[in-house]
């Protein structure tokens, strides 16, 4: 079983913060890609 790297509460808080940064981008597709890419780069592909 893969170890849990981050609990759900912390993960949601982090995701909301990341989302708040990217939501100001004019292109929503780019913003979503940015969020996914950032999470993958920092936390790993398990979170992508």
């Amino acid at each position, binding site marked *: 079983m893969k*170890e849990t790297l981050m609990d759900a509460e912390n993960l949601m808080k982090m995701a909301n*913060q990341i989302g*708040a940064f990217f939501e*100001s*981008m*004019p292109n929503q597709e780019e913003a979503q890609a940015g969020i996914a890419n950032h999470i993958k780069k*920092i936390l790993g*592909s*398990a979170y992508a």
Partner: protein
Amino acid sequence: MNQLNSIDFGTPKSTSSELITLEIDGKMMTVPKGTSVMRAAVESGVQIPKLCATDSLNSFGSCRLCVVEIEGRKGYPASCTTPVENGMKVKTQTDKLANIRRGVMELYISDHPLDCLTCPTNGNCELQDMAGVVGLREVRYGYEGSNHLDLKKDESNPYFTYDPAKCIVCNRCVRACEETQGTFALTIDGRGFESRVAASQNESFMDSECVSCGACVQACPTATLTEKTVIQMGQADHSVTTTCAYCGVGCSFKAEMKGSEVVRMVPNKNGGANHGHSCVKGRFAWGYSSHKDRMLKPMIRAKITDPWQEVTLEQALTHAASEFRRIQGTYGKNAIGGITSSRCTNEEVYLTQKLIRAGFGNNNTDTCARVCHSPTGYGLKQTIGESAGTQTFDSVMHADVIMVIGANPVAAHPVFASQMKRRLRQGAKLIVIDPRTTEMVKSPHIQAQYHLKLLPGTNVAVISALAHVVVTEGLLKEDYIAERCDLKSYNEWKAFIALPENSPEAMEKVTGVPADDLRAAARLYAKAGNGAIYYGLGVTEHAQGSTMVMGIANLAMATGNVGREGVGINPLRGQNNVQGSCDMGSFPHELPGYRHVSDTTARTLFEDAWGVKLDPEPGLRIPNMFDAALEGSFKGLYCVGEDIVQSDPDTQHVASALEAMECIVVQDLFLNETAKYAHVFLPGSSFLEKDGTFTNAERRISRVRKVMPAKSGMSDWETTQAFSNALGYPMHYSHPSEIMDEIARLTPTFQGVSFERIDALESIQWPCNESAPEGTPTMHIEQFVRGKGKFIITKYVPSLEKVTQKFPLILTTGRILSQYNVGAQTRRTENVRWHSEDLLEIHPHDAAERNIKEADWVGIESRSGTTVLRAKVTENVQPGVVYTTFHFPESGANVITTDNSDWATHCPEYKVTAVQVMPVTQPSQWQKDFKKFDEMQLKLSQGLPVASAN
């Protein structure tokens, strides 16, 4: 007193490219225009007698010893104040000159003690030297006249004495305090014969404005100002050049030694970062390396409530390795990890992350930069393509407008602050963006043109408003942007920043900064010939730390202020090797050289070199390690030189996490707060006890040289290597230079770096490779590292940390000059004389509302916890904001900081904590528990059992 083996040229070097030819004592020579006759003579091998001149200071012409004869000129001009001219013919030695000089020396010696043989500078005294050089044989005035021989010594400063009886009033110390340091603490009191050096208003040095940088001591040609260590030990017999282990300036020092003991640390005038200057910490506060608290033996224990047991290093490492493998066998490969720090050299950091990646088999490596400049790494990589500052420190001397954001270099980068102040005194303008009125805002001969006193947590609002002014008032450098920046991102950013919501008027409500001031500051910066931005942890340690760094980059690019001297984006990295620890791949997601672990090309390079498969997934950051520990999946930690219990936020959370782990291995000089939770203690080595390199805030890689044997028997890199071997991952380096050679082979930006190359060049600023064989002082000259600079939209998002009725004040934190970070080093030196406890700064209005007076004990409560400090009532903070430092563990400053952090990097939001402050009569519960725990751990460290340890 002179440095060992150092030539003093008398006056500073000229930087002119125009050359002048003259004749000195019949010999023709050519020197740059602006060179003094004195310096020209020294460069040709002729020493002209001197006392008031020294090459770190502008000429003064007071001692009249350096007089010369110049053909066609009347009289006997001072060679120090006379610039060379084409065709000049100078004689430095004639009968008349000899008579004049002997006369001058007679006067000096008539009012000077004749105790040379017992004087601490005997054999190294310029007055003594000059008496010999001029052939002084008698003092016709005798010694019975008026003199100053009865004047009392001032021994108040813990590091040096001032003996006015020996003073020749050459003014070097006064000039050093003005020109080099910029504090202006010294003056000449009285006139004529009554003239004496005075500190402030004729106070003792300790009570005066003196900041104990030692520039005066260094400049003094006699024993008037002398280090106490020289008085006690005598003079050194050899010196070794090394690099300071304190702040990110990375001052170069000559450690003057007697055998294997340090006599004194003298700033190296060839130091690329410091040019012969230093601060109280680097110059004087090195005694911690031999403090009685040093732990020199390896120790182990099963539980943190057990006494420590001294063992051999082999036993300690075998035990630690066995525990780590047991933990991995039980909980999985990712259940252990490591933390490096700036206390480690580049080579040691590299080894530690190599051990973790190749030995532990995961990427659970992180470093102290997590809690300070990780947003710099992220933000600058995104915008300009490299995770580092763009300039040298010297670049500031070409700046026209200097903007300092969230930094107080006077306290945290004092030598650089002195240089910045020099530029400001020359006429450059200053903008300070800081919630506090720091020493940068106003100091002798310096006043910030604008002090934007924003509320903590509103940085991005301010930077966006500044950029709004630039964009809407036609202040953009369109040509620069068109040539060098990504136009799509620029246009998107421009449209966003021009929105009315980003205007100074709209942002004034949240920032507290008057719109007019902000507009004026923006115009000043944008219209400057050269505008330079310097920033510190007041930028990065926020929930929007990375956003703010990107906002700074946006502003710099929009105004054309990157890519030459005098401008730039300058993160003031706080620690001696925090830049290096990032460069060396300490982060869980990046290999050395900032290449992502998922990058197959980069990873394969390291796999081939290291002989193992590496994990392509990012590992745990420090905060995630704590969360995972509490959750039960992270059980082992190897912590080298970092005190996470004291330095990381939300202390109680950190302590709980450590208590949940099964094997913590701490490698350090002292039994620090983290070691109190450890199961294995490995004795560390100070910077005086190891070879290696540090990389400062300028990307300058400098040598750290071993000046004495490691007190524990091994340098840190050797211990880490031994640990790796115990774990079964072989490492067999015989010298740190081999580690650097490996780094250079595997890291393109370090390709040209080697110990040999550093020795040849004194220091190297990376990138250093085929295209920059001597390093890169200024980056992004032709283009940005990422190609085109990228603008990134920086929308202001308020912090989650809100002030409420219950917590109506905002706490922000910072540093003080005399202490360094968690104080592990400086608390164990005489620097405690200046700062013996952390205080809470509170505005008089807030204090009055709460009936708090100066020095009262006050409780500071946040959503995380409570602690108690003494109050300092001051207008340096604004109403609604309180401030403290974090240098003493018993202060519990991080008991009250929260787990809020930067969205991109998890850098803690130390600068924004909502608190309430009230008078109290006793320590907080945490402090009482801390004291008990501390006392218990002290007993356990002595091998003593503790009853009812639970």
